[in-house]
């Protein structure tokens, strides 16, 4: 286990360093003034010197300023990140609760009417971009039926944001439906694979009924990869959050990135990209460690 952990940590460190390098290389593409806003006085020195001085600043929590003399990028991040976490947290929980049973059902009864129906629904939501789904929901449930607000919560306080279910429902639902489709596709194939395994055959041979086979053997064994799935889906979910936040005018991290892109504000996009990238790399590391804790086969096989 220690060997596996050490190896995996080293890999994660390499990935994080590469993320900073990629982000910094992207900065090289930016026009002079934008670059100067991020690297400051080092703008005229060599690439490596610039990179190291920028990295030093970042490690001190200095991600640059939003505009000359204005708010710092780190402060903007501190106000917008909790909002994104609320949106992503709620929708991921809903997605897991729906997708796990839906995926297993599809694998167990692929040719039943419900199985076919779930399959079609999964395809539809998987292929529908978040902005189409979100605008359709706004059109019919927000503007049409007036059940929910057409805009995300606009309060300054996080407590008010969480309790404003009328405005929070549509953004959460939009992100959740897209995530359900991604997870359900994965669960279906994971469950289909474990249905082919020998332990399922063995359980059936011992006379276990189908319900017991599904709950005790298939569900348990397909839950382990869900941890990996969660870790690997972080970038995709954050990308979805960007679209949802811009559609619903919800001032989270994604919304700020979108605003920054429209105003050509390179320091903001760059700082936020870095945080997203490092966050996702750490998430994938944690997922791998959790996987190894849950499934001893992994740590013996890879270490």
């Amino acid at each position, binding site marked *: 286990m220690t060997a596996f952990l050490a190896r995996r940590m080293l*890999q994660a460190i*390499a*990935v*994080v360093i*590469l*993320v900073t*390098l*990629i*982000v910094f290389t*992207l900065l090289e*593409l*930016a*026009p002079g003034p934008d670059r100067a806003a991020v690297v400051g006085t080092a703008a005229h020195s060599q690439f490596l010197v610039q990179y190291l001085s920028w990295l030093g600043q970042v490690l001190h929590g200095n991600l640059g300023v939003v505009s000359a003399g204005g708010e710092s990028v780190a402060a903007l991040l501190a106000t917008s990140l909790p909002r994104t976490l609320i949106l992503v947290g709620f929708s991921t929980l809903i997605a897991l609760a729906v997708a796990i049973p839906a995926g297993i059902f599809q694998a167990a009864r692929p040719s039943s009417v419900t199985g076919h129906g779930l399959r079609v629904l999964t*395809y*539809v939501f*998987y*292929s*529908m*971009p*978040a*902005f*189409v789904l979100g*605008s*359709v929901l*706004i*059109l*019919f449930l927000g*503007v*049409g039926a007036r059940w929910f607000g*057409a805009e995300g919560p606009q309060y300054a306080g996080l407590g008010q944001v969480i309790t404003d279910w009328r405005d929070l429902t549509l953004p959460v639902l939009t992100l959740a439906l897209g995530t359900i489709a991604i997870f359900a596709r994965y669960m279906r194939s994971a469950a289909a694979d474990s249905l082919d395994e020998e332990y399922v055959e063995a359980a059936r041979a011992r006379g276990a009924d189908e319900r017991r086979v599904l709950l005790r053997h298939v569900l348990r064994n397909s839950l382990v990869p869900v941890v990996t799935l969660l870790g690997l889906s972080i*970038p*995709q979910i*954050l*990308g979805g959050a*960007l*679209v949802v936040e*811009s*559609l619903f005018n919800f001032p989270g991290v994604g919304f700020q*990135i*979108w605003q920054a*892109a*429209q105003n*050509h504000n*390179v320091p903001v*996009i*760059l700082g*936020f*990209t870095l945080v*997203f*990238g*490092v966050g*996702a*790399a750490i998430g*994938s590391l944690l997922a791998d460690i959790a996987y190894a804790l849950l499934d001893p086969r992994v740590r013996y096989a890879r270490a």
Partner: protein
Amino acid sequence: MGSAAVAILVAMFAFCFLGPLVYHTDQVHVFFKFANLSPGAGHPLGTDADGDDELGRVMVGGQASLEVGIAAGLLAAFLGSLWGAASGYFGGVTDAVMMRIVDAGIAIPTIVVLLLIVTIYRPTEPVLVLVIAATSWLSTARLVRAEALALRTREYVQMVRVMGGASPRAVLRHIAPNALGTIAVNVSFQIGNAILILATLSYLGLGVQFPAVDWGNMIFSAVQTISSGYWWQIVSPGVAIMLVVVAFTMLGDALRDGLKSKSRGR
């Protein structure tokens, strides 16, 4: 499932590229008199804010979506296959370095990198193809690398080495062609994905630029007046995107299932 997917794709191609030859509409001029008409006689899918016919616009808009999506998807699959095949073939330190680069690239949400790049470069169709491919090849690289790792121990690849064949030749002539099944499946997913990414960029106002039209920027315009409830302006291009992406995803699934049962049969 595969044949249904092909049928949808053929129909959508005919609709976008042959449709305008049969169903003539003026998508250039502005007709305020006819703005925002709901579906009815003369305009089966209604009109948009400029008074242009929605059905004709979905046809024309699909051309950009399909062209950029297919070009970017193919390019991404090609780049990813080369990277993955080389990484898996060489193994060792080269493989570790190449795959950590892929890990780092995957960690950063694609759409964010794209936003940064199109903020700096004016997005034209060729630029969009390049940047979408440059951010999507990573998943293909992972898949093909796994395949290459399995293939490099096969006798015929070992033979090339023993006979003193050059490495690039082994990668191009033996590894890549034998991973072709995996690659074909992936091309289908990559195209569907590229169409989604392009639509998302255009929807965010940073993809295909006015006066050019694609499905994403049609929805971008429609969302500006969403509180007026002109549902047809969102539903029409939305359904078009969905049909094409569903078809490419189903095609990929069908190819993968076919590949699986073939290798089991052996």
